């Protein structure tokens, strides 16, 4: 009970009209003359309207409550910070080192706030004028009689967990001061966050605005910085499998951070992340943040093509022996060089390596080298391999394309079917419905309730046996074992029948090759080349299909990557074919 502290509260008591207040244990005011306890609590009064203290107080729950349970005052960037925080936590649970969250992602985010002039800069754009305005407004408000601590010293604890410190949010128009926003009901029609409306209107040149997909760009940048064993396609697959918060990530905001109106457009997503989009975002963000050269990707890094190729060879059930060939292709094309692989946002503007796609493309090239994939040679080689295996049952079996195709086709079709079914059953809607304004609120909640009731009714009609046991996250999507007859494993099969000795070295029996593309698009159309499925052999289509499904990318992207590797591999031939493009598609190796 502290009468001294309660002095700032100058309102008359609603019961006895006296102005004589004390504080209860819960920090609420009570009238010392009639013992009437108010709704107002000490924190409400004392917590500063000045934004620079607000993040510090999030976790302490010491934020002012607005009238009518409207929740805290919060800014859009805080929302993104929450999402990033939860995503980082999820990554930590997936086995990523904690430095990613506490050091890398945190400093990227800090840098972002700084670069976008939202915080961590001495003189945030457009804030000085507004601050005085806020100050004036504060003084006019009798409710907020506390002394604004404008320049309160910065808390230097920058751990993301405790929330970063914000200097102030930039660019709130003069006629829209935050204090008013926090009080007047009219303003709250537009958004739950303080700056939601303004944020969604903001279009400033040179500033990369935060969006929900960009949170993944931040995650991936951090993963890349740490050289973690998660590729971009893995990350996005984990998102799709709900191991990393993304869709409805706002559900994890504290109860008091209310979202509605414009916040809906900012935080609600109705699509899974798209590889190309996130990739583009990642480069944008890295360039915007002006990040230095990333740690080098050397041969012992997971993202090095040699290691990734090994991983993907295992994943798609191809013989381990192929690894020798992939390494050779990597060497010949120079895509294993440190300088090529390392991301340097400043030096190599707008470009980096799609490690996963590239590794898979190398495997496609090797398959083409071995089997030509013209819907003919691969099958006749398979006949040879089958006869050989029939006659030499004691030996290590030779790899036959046909058998592999049959196994893969079946497994892949089943997998894809399951994937499609799971997607069709995905439930997008949050238990916390988003609405446009307070008027819609009850409708949105009633609708939700109705849907839940109906869902209960229909789930009663479904067999009670649990259909899908939730899979744990794994970088592998397929599991091949020797024991399973339906899914035989080809890892141990040899390539003997496909290679011939020439002098000291081995050389592929097949000496033909066809290029996936003859023409590369000019730079202005943004893609490398086009992929018209029907122009290609069925085997090639099949391989592109399973590989692109594995990475959840469009087949055309993989086709482009294959073409790029071929361009490097057959540099000389390419320049020749340019001179005489009408020449046969097939070119001879050696």
């Amino acid at each position: 009970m502290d009468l001294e502290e309660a002095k700032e509260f100058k309102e008359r008591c609603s019961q006895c009209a006296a102005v004589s207040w004390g504080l209860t244990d819960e920090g609420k005011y009570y009238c010392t003359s009639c013992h009437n306890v108010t709704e107002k609590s000490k924190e409400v009064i004392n917590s500063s309207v000045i934004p620079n203290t607000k993040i510090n107080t999030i976790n302490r729950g010491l934020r002012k409550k607005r009238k009518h349970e409207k929740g805290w005052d919060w800014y859009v960037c805080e929302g993104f910070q929450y999402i990033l925080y939860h995503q980082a936590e999820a990554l930590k649970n997936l086995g990523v080192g904690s430095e990613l969250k506490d050091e890398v992602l945190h400093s990227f985010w800090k840098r972002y706030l700084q670069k976008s002039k939202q915080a961590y800069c001495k003189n945030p754009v457009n804030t000085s004028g507004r601050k005085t305005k806020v100050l004036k407004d504060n003084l006019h408000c009798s409710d907020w009689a506390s002394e604004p601590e404008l320049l309160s010293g910065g808390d230097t604890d920058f751990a993301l967990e405790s929330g970063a410190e914000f200097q102030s949010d930039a660019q709130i128009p003069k006629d829209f001061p935050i204090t008013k926003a926090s009080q007047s009901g009219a303003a709250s029609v537009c958004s739950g966050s303080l700056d939601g409306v303004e944020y969604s209107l903001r279009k400033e040149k040179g500033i990369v605005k935060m969006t929900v997909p960009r949170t993944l760009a931040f995650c991936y940048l951090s993963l890349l910085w740490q050289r973690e064993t998660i590729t971009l396609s893995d990350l996005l697959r984990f998102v799709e499998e709900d191991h990393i918060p993304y869709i409805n990530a706002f559900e994890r905001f504290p109860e008091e951070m209310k979202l509605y109106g414009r916040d809906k457009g900012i935080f609600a997503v109705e699509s899974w992340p798209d590889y190309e989009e996130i990739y583009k975002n990642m480069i944008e963000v890295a360039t915007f943040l002006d990040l230095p050269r990333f740690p080098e990707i050397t041969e012992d890094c997971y993202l090095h093509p040699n290691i990734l190729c090994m991983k993907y060879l295992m994943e798609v059930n191809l013989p381990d022996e192929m690894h020798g060939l992939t390494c050779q292709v990597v060497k010949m094309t120079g895509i294993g060089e440190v300088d090529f692989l390392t991301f340097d946002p400043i030096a190599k503007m707008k470009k980096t390596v799609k490690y996963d796609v590239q590794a898979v493309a190398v495997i496609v090239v090797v398959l083409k080298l071995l089997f030509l994939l013209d819907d003919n040679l691969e099958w006749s080689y398979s006949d040879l391999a089958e006869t050989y295996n029939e006659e030499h049952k004691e030996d290590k079996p030779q790899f036959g394309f046909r058998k592999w195709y049959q196994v893969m086709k079946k497994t892949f079709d089943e997998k894809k079917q399951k994937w499609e079914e799971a997607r069709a059953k995905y439930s997008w809607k949050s238990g916390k419905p988003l609405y446009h304004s307070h008027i819609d609120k009850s409708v949105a909640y009633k609708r939700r309730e109705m849907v839940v009731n109906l869902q209960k009714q229909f789930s009663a009609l479904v067999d009670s046996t649990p259909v899908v046991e939730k899979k744990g996250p794994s970088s592998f999507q397929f599991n091949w074992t020797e024991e399973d007859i339906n899914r035989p494993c080809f890892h141990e099969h040899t390539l003997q029948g496909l290679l011939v000795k020439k002098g000291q070295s081995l050389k592929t029996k097949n000496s033909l090759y066809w290029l996936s593309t003859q023409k590369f698009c000019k730079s202005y159309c943004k893609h490398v080349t086009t992929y018209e499925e029907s122009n290609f052999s069925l085997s090639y289509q099949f391989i592109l299909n399973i590989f692109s499904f594995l990475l959840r990318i469009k087949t055309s992207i993989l086709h482009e990557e294959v073409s790029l590797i071929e361009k490097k591999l057959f540099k000389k031939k390419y320049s020749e074919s340019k001179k005489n493009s009408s020449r046969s598609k097939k070119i001879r190796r050696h």
Partner: protein
Amino acid sequence: MSDFSEQLTKPVTEDEQVETSVSSGTGMHFPWLQKQLETVVTGGKKKKDFAQTTSACLEFIQEALLRHQWQRAAEYMHSYLQTLEDSDSYKRQTAPEVIWKLGSEILFYHPKSNVETFNTFADRMKNIGVLNYLKISLQHALYLLHHGMFEDADRNLSQAETWRYGEKSSSQEVLINLVQAYKGLLQYYTWSKKKMELSEFDEDDYAYTSKSQNMLSQSCKTSVNICALIKVPGVWDPFVKSYVEMLEFYGDQDGARNVLTNYAYDEKFPSNPNAHIYLYDFLKREKAPRAKLISVLKILHEIVPSHKLMLEFHMLLRKSEKEEHRKLGLGVLFGVLDFAGCTKNKTAWRYLAKYLKLMLMESHTVWVQEEWNSRKNWWPAFHFSSFWAKTDWKEDTALAFEKAYVAGILLGKGCRYFRYILKQDHQILKKKIKRMKKSVKKYSIVNPGV
């Protein structure tokens, strides 16, 4: 009505009319066009995954329904319900109807479902999006009727009948009428049950009077319920039929005639053969003059030239004195036999044989020629091939005989059908065939000399 649904109503009457699928006027359906149009609507923007997965979900449900996998359908239905919360407001408004259709289908067949589940579902769906309230109520009532729950259905309809929502759109008004009319139909059902009971009583019995009093009040209610609907253009056969039956029972012949005439002749109503049949049957019961009957059947002839009443029509025309009617009598018979379903109609053939002879005897050769000209290219193969001669003779000699006679007259005695029948040495028909041969020789429109 809960305020929930009130909040949901927005002026969507125009939207309601919009079919979700693209169908051309002829009832043809282009599923591929729909997909193309969707991309046009979104302005080439990528469809959101939400839209993609829910439409995939819909396909899975439809497939499951098609294969009677109710359990699987219910499983997907669970996810499909989220379309009620679609952020696209147009889709959100059309969702309840789709969900009602799919859900009621699943609940109708699902082994674990029962009337109670269905009722809960229907009641919930009625209150999502007001615009479906009446439609769902009506279908709910039909479901209950299907399960023999007569009283519940009646209660349901009464509830729907009194339901009002602000300014009714015109489409809703028809629905209210329909709800009332179905209620009327249920009352008619009770009424006709009572009528059956009544027929077992003696007229002087005390019970008879009270019963018939009861019935009278019933019929009053019914007529009120039905008569609003049947003023609206549409096909209301069962309603009209039962309404007329009641009117006739209470001796209101004029009322019944008015209803039927209006139903048959009002131009706003869609062309409906039954309307004319009902009117004809009524007039026949009333012993109306021949001219009147002819005029009713003439319209039916235009709509359904192969209707079985056409033979009756022919008889009426035949008895008429008017030249024009007698000529039409010939056309009617030809018209009936143009249809594959009537090729073995013995009566029609007999009438035609007789009438042809009569016409030719009265030297109306031109009339016969006129009808024959448009048919002479295809009737020989259609009716008078030697294949038909063989089968007809095997199956029904009398039919073959009539047909042979017609063939002889129309095609001459050289015709295959005629010759085949002639060749059959049939003991009983011997005389008849001989007579036919003679008559054909005399009347055939084909001049053997040419």
